[in-house]
Every structure is written in C-alpha cells, then in structure tokens.
C-alpha cells in the first residue's frame, strides 16, 4: 500500500486549492467528475469540461487548468503533497472513471507486453495456470506494493524481458496476427450480415412493388374491359418464384425485361414451400386430342335431307349447327377402326386409352395393315 496522504484543504500559493476527497490509495474518488478539484469549476458552468490526467501521478484536472499551468513548461503537480513534475504533453483523458483502475491497466499494459505467453507454450494446463498466477502476483506487486516490493517486481520484470526476448517477440507477432485475423473475420461477418439485411429489405420492397404492379395491371385490364386471363393472374400473384416470374415477364412483354434482370440477381432469396402448379382451364377429356386423325372434314359436305332444313326457321333459330351433323356422321363411321379387341384384353388394365391408340398406330406403322399383324401374333 502506498503511504496514505492525509486529506487537506489548505490553500496553496497561486490560489489553487488542494483536493480534499481522496480515495484510500491517494487518488480522487471516482464519479466526482462534476467539479475540477484544482480550479473548482463545476460542470454546471462549463458543460464541455474535460478532465485530463498525467500517468506520472494520475491526478485529474480540467483541461483549462492543464493549459493554464503547463503551457509554459514543466511544473509541479498542483495537488497537495504531490511533488511530481508534470509536462503538458504527458496529459491525456482517462478511459476509466476510477483512476486507480486506469493506473492498474496502464501497468498491465506493460506487464502484458512482456508476459505474453499463451497456453500452447506450456506442457500442461496446470503449468499455464501457475504462470498466470505468477504474472498476476507480479502485477499486484507493481500496482499495490510498497516501494521495495515495487522495485523488486520491476527488476523481475526487466529480467524476464531480457531473458525471453525472442520468445516475447515471436508471441507478440503471433498475437498481432491473431488479432488481425479475428478483426478481419469480424468485419467480414458484419459486412455479410449487412448485405443480407439489405437483400432482405430489397426483397420485401420488390414484393411490395410486385403487388402494386399486379393491382395496376388488373385495374388497367379492367379499364380496357378485358380481365386478365386467369392463368396469368395466378402466376402473377406468386412471389419469389423466379421461374414463373420469367414466364410472366415474357408474357408481359419487353417493358418488364429490365425488371427481370434485376430480379434474377438477388441473392439469399428464401426457399419457400413449393406452391402447386397453376391450374389451367378445366379439360373434361383429360388431355385427349380430339382432332380426327384418319380423315379430314372438308367444308361444304352435305346431304339432301339436311339441306332442306337449312332454311327452316324452327331449326335455325334453335341454333342447330349443320356442321355438327357431318362431323358426327364421320366420327361414327370411323369409330372403332384401329382398335383390336384381342390386344385390349391382353394388355388392357394398366394402360390408358391414349396409349392403346398410340400402340395401335405404332403397330400399324410397322406391320402395314391390321389383320396381317394380328395373324403374326397368333
């Protein structure tokens, strides 16, 4: 423990009053940063008052005091009982409110530069822990010890420094590198996070724009009296689905190609649940192609019995289509051709009608006419 200085408030020459509030170790109490202990200016009068300390003795005073007292050259510390000589350029603003901690950390900085071994340098964890404690003891001696202890610790420190020069240098470089690395990693992580955040914002915004666009398109088309085709609308409503979007963009024409390019470049789009494929208009025949393949209907076919109804009001008004008559007649005439009952029985169950038809056609292509093929199979 450093010698205790008795608190005193005796005025000193030069109109400067000494400090009266001293913490046990001779430093001003923390948190008393509202009044300069030297000139007694209070923060109320000077809002930006800044306190400075000099690591010679860690006595704090306001910056104007420092300027006033030390601009002319080195001076004795204005604190009562402190006989240190301070220089202007030694002053700095403290990091900690508690100046004893400030001092401790300054000492630690020095110790740390010398004792910078890491766990890997030791055989066992226990050795490392003992080393840590040794360093801590030494630091404690430097910080809190009385003069002889301090001097002894100081000597130890210097001795160690001399003995382990190369190691210290090596560890310092390694440490620096590691710091640098972790700093870089941190920075990279932060940048990535920022980027993702931006992406998310962009995505949200685009979604909003998309919604507005759809709405506008709908209104436009309503204006023109032709509602958007259902299928298109369904696709438009889908968000974030790039493939579909591309289709829509094509459909919407060249005006939105720029959008499409912007959209495809987004990274970090979220995976969404696959939405069901858009349903087209309902097809009662399930995709079966109904255009006749074996014949072609020429316009103008007719039949005398039909002809006379063409002018009959009772038929015409009812909406009867005379082409319907011919097409049905043709369909009935050709129905069943190319269907082989035997095959159907053999293959039947598992195959869809269209497949059978396809098969029949394929067979027909290979083997010329139907009956011949049938015989071959028999």
């Amino acid at each position, binding site marked *: 423990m450093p010698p205790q200085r008795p608190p005193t408030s005796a005025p000193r020459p030069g109109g400067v009053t000494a400090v009266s509030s001293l913490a046990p170790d001779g430093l001003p109490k923390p948190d008393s940063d509202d009044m300069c202990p030297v000139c007694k200016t209070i923060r109320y009068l000077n809002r930006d008052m800044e306190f400075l300390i000099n690591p010679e003795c860690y006595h704090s005073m306001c910056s104007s005091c420092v300027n006033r007292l030390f601009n002319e050259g080195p001076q004795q510390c204005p604190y009562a009982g402190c006989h240190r000589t301070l220089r202007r350029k030694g002053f700095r603003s403290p990091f900690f409110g508690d100046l004893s*901690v400030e001092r401790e950390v300054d000492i630690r900085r020095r110790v740390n530069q010398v004792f910078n071994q890491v766990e890997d340098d030791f055989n066992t964890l226990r050795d490392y*822990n003992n080393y840590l404690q040794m360093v*801590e003891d030494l630091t404690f001696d430097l910080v809190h010890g009385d003069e002889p202890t301090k001097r002894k610790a100081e000597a130890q420190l210097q001795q160690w420094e001399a003995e382990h020069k190369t190691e210290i240098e090596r560890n310092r470089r390694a440490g620096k590198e590691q710091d640098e690395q972790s700093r870089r990693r941190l920075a990279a992580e932060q940048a990535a996070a920022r980027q993702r955040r931006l992406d998310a914002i962009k995505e949200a915004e685009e979604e909003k724009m998309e919604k507005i666009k759809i709405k506008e398109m709908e209104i436009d088309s309503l204006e023109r009296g032709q509602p958007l085709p259902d299928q298109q609308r369904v696709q438009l409503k889908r968000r974030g689905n790039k493939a579909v979007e591309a289709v829509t963009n094509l459909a919407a024409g060249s005006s939105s190609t720029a959008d499409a390019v912007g959209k495809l470049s987004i990274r970090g789009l979220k995976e969404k649940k696959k939405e069901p494929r858009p349903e087209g208009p309902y097809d009662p025949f399930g995709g079966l192609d109904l255009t006749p393949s074996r014949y072609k209907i020429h316009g103008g076919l007719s039949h005398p019995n039909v002809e006379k109804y063409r002018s009959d009001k009772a038929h015409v008004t009812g909406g009867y289509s005379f082409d319907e008559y011919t097409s049905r007649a043709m369909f009935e005439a050709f129905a069943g051709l190319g269907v082989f009952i035997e095959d159907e029985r053999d293959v039947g169950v598992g195959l869809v009608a269209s497949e059978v038809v396809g098969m029949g056609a394929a067979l027909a292509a290979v083997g010329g006419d139907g009956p011949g093929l049938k015989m071959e199979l028999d």
Partner: protein
Amino acid sequence: MEFFIDDLRVLFPYPRIYPEQYAYMVDLKKTLDAGGNCVLEMPSGTGKTVTLLSLIVAYQMSSQEKRPLIYCSRTMSEIEKALVELKALMKFRAERLGHEEDFRAMGLTSRKNLCLHPDVKREKSGSVVDARCRSLTAGFIQEKKRKGEDVDVCVYHDNLDNLEPHNLIPNGVWSLDGLLRYGQKHTQCPYFTARRMMSQCNVVIYSYHYLLDPKIAERVSKDFSKDCIVVFDEAHNIDNVCIESLSTDITEESLRRATRGAQFLENRINEMRDSDQQKLQDEYEKLVEGLRGDDETREEDSFMANPTLPEDLLKEAVPGNIRRAEHFVAFLRRFIEYLKTRMKVRQVISETPPSFLAHLKEYTFIEKKPLRFCAERLTSLVRTLELTRIEDYQPLQEVATFATLVATYEKGFLLILEPYESDTAEVPNPVLHFTCLDAAIAIKPVFDRFSSVIITSGTISPLEMYPKMLNFETVVQESYSMTLARRSFLPMIVTRGSDQATISTGFQVRNEPSVVRNYGSLLVEFAKITPDGIVLFTPSYLYLESLISMWQGMGVLDEVWKYKLILVETPDAQETALALETYRTACKNGRGAVFLCVARGKVSEGVDFDKEFGRTVINIGVPFQYTESRILKARLEFLRETYRIRENDFLSFDAMRHAAQCLGRVIRGKDDYGVMVLADRRFKSKIQQLPKWIHQALLGADTNLSTDMAVSNARRFFKMIAQPFRTEDQEGISIWTLEQLKQHQRKMQEELIRELQATEEKRVNQQQQAQQAQQFISARERPDSDYEMDEDDEAELMALDP
C-alpha cells in the same frame, strides 16, 4: 371409466370422455412409445390436464422403469389445479384397483410460498426470503452449529436431518397446501422437503423456470433421470420464457451497487486474512487442484449456479489469474469499471459478443477464459467468505452471470446499449441490454437430456413454428378440433363498421374519429344484446387509454353505461385485481359488465372468463408487438438469418397467438358458450393462423362482416343457445360413454384392418399389373418367338444342343 389403448389400461376418473381427449391420449402414447417429442394443441376447456395425467400415470404404473413425470406450468394456481386433479385421479385409481399404489407426487414453488419460519415468512419480497433463509441454513452455519457455536438456525430445516433422507414425507399426492400443513404438523420445512424429495417422486409439478432458467435449473433439476417425461403446459409463450431466462439488463445503478458489492468482498477478504487465513488457503488449494468438491456441486442451495457452461469447461480448473481471492476481486472491479465507461457513450450501440470481447481485451486485458469462470468463481468465493447478507451481492452476481454468458456464447446473443429511455428523452438513463435472441439455447439442455418432451397448450398454432424456433424434432404434431353437439361459440370477423368504413388499428388510422366511433358503436351494440359479461381486448395500454378518452368525448361510454358496468385493466396488479372482483360481482348480479383489457396484459394470460363471466369477447385490433423496439428488431433479424422465419411471419404469428389466447379466455368448457368478435380488417388474411378449433368454427360467411351484420348474427346465436339442451343430446357426439368409446375403438380397429387390407390388395394388384406389363413387353420384344418359353427351358435346350 376404464379402457384400453392398445394394451395400456387407462383409468380415467370421469364416467364420460370427450372424443378429443381420447385422441389426445392416443397421440401421447404414440409419443411416449417412440420416445420423442411432440407438440399438441388441445382446445381450451376440454380437460387437457386430467387427460394428460391419467394417460401418463397409467403409462408409468404399467411399465417397469416407472419414468417420472415433470410437469411444468406457468402460475401457482395452475400448479395447484393440476395437483388437485392428480389427487382425484389417484383416489379413483385406488378405488378401482382396490389398493393404494406406491406413488408420490409433489408441487414445488418458491420459498416465499412455502416458508414456515415465523420471521422469515413475513418478508414481502421473494428474494429477501431466499436470502434470509440461506443465512439460516447455509453449510457453514450448520458447521458452526455442529461445533457448538451459538448461531441462528431454522428449526424447520434442521429437523429434516433427523429423518430418513429418502423418506421425508409419506407417499401420496402433496398439494402445496397439503405440504404446508404437513410441514406445520411435523415442524419440518416444506420447501426443503419438496426439494430433497423431488428425485423420489413419480410426478413433480412446478414452474417453467425450474427447468428453463439455467441459473436455477442447475440447482433444482439436475437429479432427475434421463428417462423423465417432461411436459410444458400452456406453452404457447415458451420461447419468450426461454429468452428472458438468459437475458439481463445492466444499468448504471446496478453497476454502482456491484462496485459496492466488490468493495464488501474486498473488506471481507482482508478481515478473513487476518482472522482465518486457513479458509482462504483451503479454497485456493482446491482451485489449484481443479477440484470442485462434491459438497460444492451438491450443496442444494448455493448462492447462484452456473448458467449453462459447456460440460468440458465445467471440469476444467479455474484459470490461474483469478485463483486468489484478491486477484479475482480486482478482476471484477476492472470489469465493472469497463462497463461503466461503456455506459457513458451517448449513442445507441449494438454489438455481438465477439466484438465486445475484443474491445474489452484491448482496454482491460481481460481474457475470455477467466471471464467465463466468473460466475463460478464468485459462488465459490461467497461460500468461502461465509457471507450471510447475500442480497447485497445480488447486483454483483448479475454482472458475473453476464460475464459468463457473454464469454460463453458467440452466437444468439446481442448487446444493445440504449443511452436514453425514449427517443425524445433529454436526460440519459443508459441501459445495457444483454439479450438472448435464440430461444433454442435455454431449452436445448432440456431436449438433450430428456427423451420425451411434450409441449402443449390450448392455443399453439401454427404448430410447426415451435419446432422451428426451439430447434427440435417431433414425433407427433397435432391440433385437435372441438367436437360439439351444437354450435356453442360463434367466431366472427368484423371488418367494417355499420357505415361500411373499414376498421383497423393500423398505425395510421387507429386514432381517426371514424374508426374510433365504429369501434365504439360495436361495443355499444354488443353491450345491448349480450347477457352478463363482455371482455374487450385492445393491443396496448396506450391505445386503450386513447380509446377511452375519445369514447368519453363521443358519448360512447355513457351509452354503454346504460347496459353494463365498465371496468378497466391497468398496469397496476392490485388495481386490476380489484376491478376483476367487481366485474365478477356485476356479472353474478345479472346485469353484467364490460371489462376493458389489454391483449398482452395479465388478464389475457391468466384469468378465465368462464360461463357468465364472459359471453362476448371483442378483440379490437391485431395485437402486434411494438416493432420499434431494438431488441425485437434484433430478434427478428436473428430469426430470419438462422431459422429462415420471415419478419412478417413471426410478427403475425406472435400477434395471432395472443389474439387466440384472448379468444380462448371465454370458452372454458363444452357447456360454455360465447361470441368471439375479431374486429379488424387485417384479421381476414390471418384466419389460417388461428387454432384449428376456432378456425373450424368460423364460417366463411362470417369472415367479412359489418357491425350490424355481426350483431344480428350474434342475436340469432344467443336465441339459439337459449333453447333447452340436455346432456343426452351431446352423448355420442361431443361426449362419449364407455360403450360409445368402445364402439369408436372397434370402428377404428375395423378401419385399420380395412386400410391394411386395402394396401395389401393394392400391393397385390400392382404386382399383377407389373407382371402383365412384363409379359406384354417380353411379348413385344420377341415378336418372332411363337410360343412362350421359360428361360430354364431355353437353357436346357441349349445345353442339349451340342
């Protein structure tokens, strides 16, 4: 009644059972058999607790290993209710089986509620009771007493030592009340009786925190075996409980007090160095050896426990530079001073733990590792110093916990420094929030340790959100619908006022007179037609206040006054309790009352408005969280980055779970009835997020109503519900007798068989088809072969050829 699920004999203490209860049991059993986790949503008021207990007890009793049940609930009253149910169940079982089973169950709550010491129990604050109890029961006090020194002790605690340690209390179900009475009679401390007997119990019922808060869980719950069945009931808020248990706020005041605590410690160390050097030396040596003596970890009541340190670290020795007591205190002081300096910054800062640690190291030379051991080292020191007035060290403990957490977790936490309370405040009042963003961290040890964790609630939709947020896998995820013999509750979404103007509490429109007037007339209309009580929920206190003052100006309140008494929830718990009592009296008197409350307040979570206490519930506005909060923003971002949950999805999920909670307040049983009004345009797009049982009762036609339509609907509903209705009408539909249950089981059996048969048939069919196709293909591939020939035959022929 008594029935079998598969081959498990279930005793159910009621003569009838709801279909959903049966379904719930089946799913529970499936989960237990598979040894996995599940999320189950069961409509409120369908007897969830008793269902759960009867199945699990049946399961325990039938199996060899008797897996204990840990049942976690939220509040004291829920714990007590569950214990009462369990008691009835065990009584029923005893009657049926003809003998008492070897069974012990217990509830646990804080010392505050269980203390018997005449002086200590009079303390008002829970932490003071804890501290005072510790000073009477701590290990070194016992030591001193044994040496014959004159120390204050608690006779209730010391009597326990005279009993058999594994049989402090006889078998049976001990409710909190019963425990107190038994303790009084035998002069033994109920709290410690429960604590010490917990591992001997078949069922333990206590609050979430004993399992989720790592600072407590380590002490209280570490003796449970791995095969325990863990149930979290009313778990719709479990993610928030997890997060809160790992978050701390540090203020300038708490740092000041922590400094003082450190000062006390230092003084005490100096004292002890003079008088009892040996003790410090002993501790030091133990730390050097890396020994964490059994007595230390075992001590049931240490000052604080370690917040979730990784297992391997727990075995490591304390770093050398904080082994000595004085070194450690200096270390703490440096850390506290550093925090104080950081608090002086006058702008908002948010940073991750790694960047905090890097800065810390640069300015104070504090490394990560000793920081991690901070909490543990402090505990050890406090014990060595034999400190009694432990409450003085509370702030220091908080700082130490913070130190440990910040050094342990790189991900899932964030430090946010807010220098001002609000954006407009002039005087700084800095708070350093150390917030946990990841709910999965706190609950991870639970999932890691116990094989079956059951998460259940009346409103826990959408189910898939929870496994995602808490990061676990489920065996079963199920939401049950409510079987009803008649429509006993009527959910409606009101999107427009009677004047057809849309209503919403969206930020821009919420204070517009037309919106407020429309909400007002909604309330007036419902006050006219609803019998007894009406509960109305608003998104926040702030909005509730502005609503009330505007309604006052518009004469709405006067109008309501003609029909109902008006009561208001306030942030003050006592005031609210009084209002609630008055409300209940008014409802009982027949004219009824309106209770205006807040969707995230106390009332919405814990208070039931069953029967006449709630015939209509009106939800004004979607109860979104206050989105400008920095902590919430950080959490949203974390959810998006880590679990791929979109901001809006989470906010909307969170709002809807609170809305559902509010709605669920009024239907507390199957014979209960009521109207549920969701009054906001935005509810229309959120129907899917309501619990299944509410969602199913919501007709498509009722999702876009104006006030007058809703009122006429409700009027019809009340008329319909007033028709006589007998329990027999419900039988078979919404309630089953044993016969009906058996019938259902038979049906399910048959269905199962049919299903199996069908799949079998399908399989056979497919085979046949495949064969046929095969034949066809082979026929086509070899069109020249005139007749079929087996491969074997062919081979034979070839063999003969040469």
